[in-house]
C-alpha cells in the first residue's frame, strides 16, 4: 500500500463523493421541501449523459453538448413534474415510490429504444484529456480534477444560494415548515418548481461530467440513485451540509475500501481468504456505515432543524 497509491485513491474517492453530492443535492432539496421521494432522480443523471452524447454528435463541441444537455434535461424534468409528480406530493410515500419506479422502468427501456442497448462513449474536451503531475511520481488525470473542482464550486454556490439568498431562505424554511411558509403567502408549488428544476439540472450535470470516464448505458442511474439515498439519509434528510459531508464520506469509504480492503484483511488473515472476503466487505462497507450511523443517530449526522 504505497503512499502515492493512497493519494490517488483518495482523489478518486473525492471525485466519486463530489459526483454523489451533485446527485444527492437535488434529491435532498426535493425531499426536504416537498417530502417527495423521487426514485426517478437517478434517471435524470442517466438522461444527462445520453443527451450529452447526442448533442456532442450533433455539435462536435463538449461545452455546447453540456449546455444543451442541461437545458434539455431541465425541460424534461419540468415536463415530468408537470405531468406526474405534482399529483403525487400529498400522496403516501409508498405511492410516490411506485409511480417514480414506473418512470425508471419506462426511461431505462426508453433510452435502449432510442440509443440502443450498447454502451456509448462521450469524449472529453481535448484540452483537459491529459494528466498532470501533482507530486514527483504522482500523475493524475486532469478531467478527474475538473470533476472535483466543479463539484466543489457547485457546493459553494449552493451553500451561498441556500444560506444567503431569499430563495434559499424560503427553501430552508420550506424544508422544515412547509405549511407555515405557504400560509405566509409564498407559492410553495412555484418554489418547488424552481428547486426541482435546479436539482434535475445538477443530476444531469453529474451525468455529463462522468460520461467521459464511465460508459453511458441504460440503468446507469439505478445504482447511483441508491447511493444518493444512502448519502441523504446518512447526512440527515433536508440538510445540504449533511449531504455534502456524507457524499464525500461515502465516496472515500467506498473507493478506499475497494482498493485497500484486501491489504487490510491480510494484516490479520491468510492471503487467500482475504482475497475472497475483501471484495465482499468492500462492496458492503457503505451499507454497514449507513446501518451504524442510523443505529446511533436515527435521524442522520446533521438532522435539519425542526425535523427528526
Amino acid at each position, binding site marked *: 500500500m504505497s503512499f502515492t497509491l493512497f493519494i490517488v485513491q483518495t482523489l478518486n474517492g473525492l471525485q466519486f463523493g463530489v459526483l454523489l453530492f451533485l446527485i444527492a443535492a437535488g434529491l435532498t432539496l426535493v*425531499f426536504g421541501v416537498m417530502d417527495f*421521494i423521487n426514485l426517478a432522480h437517478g434517471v435524470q443523471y442517466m438522461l444527462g449523459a445520453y443527451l450529452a452524447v447526442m448533442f456532442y454528435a450533433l455539435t462536435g463541441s463538449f461545452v455546447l453538448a453540456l449546455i444543451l444537455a442541461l437545458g434539455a434535461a431541465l425541460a424534461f424534468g419540468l415536463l415530468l413534474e408537470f405531468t*406526474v409528480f405534482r*399529483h*403525487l406530493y400529498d*400522496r*403516501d*410515500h*409508498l*405511492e410516490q*415510490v*411506485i*409511480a417514480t*419506479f*414506473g*418512470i*425508471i*422502468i*419506462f*426511461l*431505462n*427501456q*426508453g433510452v*435502449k*429504444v432510442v440509443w440502443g442497448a450498447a454502451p456509448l462513449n462521450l469524449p472529453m474536451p481535448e484540452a483537459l484529456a491529459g494528466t498532470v503531475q501533482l507530486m514527483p511520481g504522482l500523475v493524475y488525470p486532469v478531467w478527474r480534477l475538473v470533476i472535483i473542482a466543479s463539484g466543489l464550486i457547485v457546493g459553494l454556490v449552493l451553500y451561498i444560494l441556500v444560506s444567503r439568498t431569499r430563495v434559499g431562505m424560503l427553501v430552508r424554511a420550506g424544508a422544515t415548515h412547509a405549511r407555515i411558509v405557504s400560509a405566509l403567502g409564498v407559492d410553495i408549488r412555484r418554489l418547488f418548481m424552481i428547486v426541482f428544476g435546479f436539482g434535475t439540472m445538477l443530476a444531469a450535470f453529474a451525468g455529463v461530467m462522468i460520461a467521459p470516464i464511465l460508459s453511458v448505458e441504460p440503468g446507469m442511474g*439505478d445504482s447511483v440513485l*441508491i447511493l444518493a*439515498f*444512502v448519502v441523504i*439519509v446518512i447526512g440527515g*434528510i433536508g440538510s445540504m451540509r449533511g449531504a455534502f459531508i456524507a457524499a464525500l464520506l461515502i465516496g472515500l469509504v467506498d473507493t478506499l475500501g475497494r482498493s485497500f480492503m484486501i491489504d487490510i484483511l491480510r494484516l490479520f488473515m491468510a492471503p487467500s481468504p482475504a482475497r*475472497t*472476503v475483501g*471484495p*465482499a466487505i468492500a*462492496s*458492503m462497507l457503505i*451499507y*454497514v456505515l*449507513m*446501518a451504524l450511523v*442510523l*443505529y446511533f443517530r*436515527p*435521524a*442522520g449526522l446533521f438532522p435539519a432543524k425542526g425535523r427528526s
Partner: protein
Amino acid sequence: MMSTLAPATSARHSGRIEIAVVAIFALLALVPFAAAFGAQSFILNLFVRVMVFAIAALAVDFLCGFGGLVTFGHAAFVGLGAYTVAIAGAHGITDMGVTLPLAILVSALFAYVTGTICLRTSGVYFIMITLAFGQMAYFIAGSLAPYGGDDGITLPSRSTLFGLEVFKDDRALYYATLGLLIAAYLLLRAVVYSRFGRVFRGARENPTRMATIGFDVFRYQRIGYVIAGGLGGLAGFLLANATEFVSPAYMSWQRSGELIIMVIFGGLSTLYGAIVGAAAYLLLEEVLAGFTENWKLIFGPLLVLIVLFARGGIVGLITTIKARLTRG
C-alpha cells in the same frame, strides 16, 4: 401516513371477502387442469412463480399494511431462503425435512438481527435501513465464489422428502406451493386478528399511545418482522425449487421494490390483495412481453397511471366499481 390507504376490513364486508379468498384459492387449484390443455409446464411454472411471490408479498403487506413498516429489503429474505436450499444441496443435503425449516430459520434469524437494528428508526429512515441490509445480503451472495458468485448456482435437484423425489412432478410442486400459500395466508390472518395483531396494528396508528398503555412496541414489531422474514424464507425455499437455480439477482433492490408494487397493485392492508397483486403483476409482465419486446415502455407508465387513478389498487378499484354499480 397510512390513513389515506384502504382501511382494514370491517366485519360487514368480511363475509364477502371470505368468498373472494376461497374463489382465488379455488381458481389457483384449478390452474393445473386448465394447463393440461395448453403449454402445461410453462403455465404451471408461471403460476408457481405467482404463488411464490404472493407468499413474499403477503409478508410485505403484513409489515407495510398492518404494521406501517415499509420494508425495501424483503427480497433479501427470499434470497436467503433460496440460498439455504442451494448451499445445502451443494453439500448433498436435499431433504426438505431439513432444508425447509432451515430456510425459514435462516431468514427469520436474519430478520431478528437486522430487525433489532432497523426498528430503532422509523418512516423513511426505516425504508432506507432495510434497503441497506438488503444490499448487504445481495453483496454477500455475489461474493460466495464457491457457490457461483455473481453467476448464481444451479441446484443439483429439487428438494426430496425422505429420499423420495416428490417434486419431480411439476404438479406436486404446484400443489405444495398452493398449500403453503394458503397456510401463509391463514397464518397471517390469524396473527392480524389476534391480540398480538391488535397491538401490532395499533403501533402503526400511534406507537406512542401503544407504549403509554404499556406495550413494548419494539418487541411486538420485532416479532412481526421475524414472522415476515420467515415467510420470505419460505418463499425462497419454493423459488429455489421452482427454478432449480439461485442467484444474487433474487436479492436486488429492484426485487424488493417489485414486492411493494405487488402489494400496492393488489391493495394494501388486505392480505388477499397481495395475492391478487402478485398474480396481476407477473401475468401482466408475461402478457405485455408477449406483445412487444419493449413491454417496459407500457408497463412503466401503467404503474404511474395505477397510482394516479386507481387508489387502493385492484381491490380498491373493484370495490369502487361495485359501489357505483349497486348505487346505479
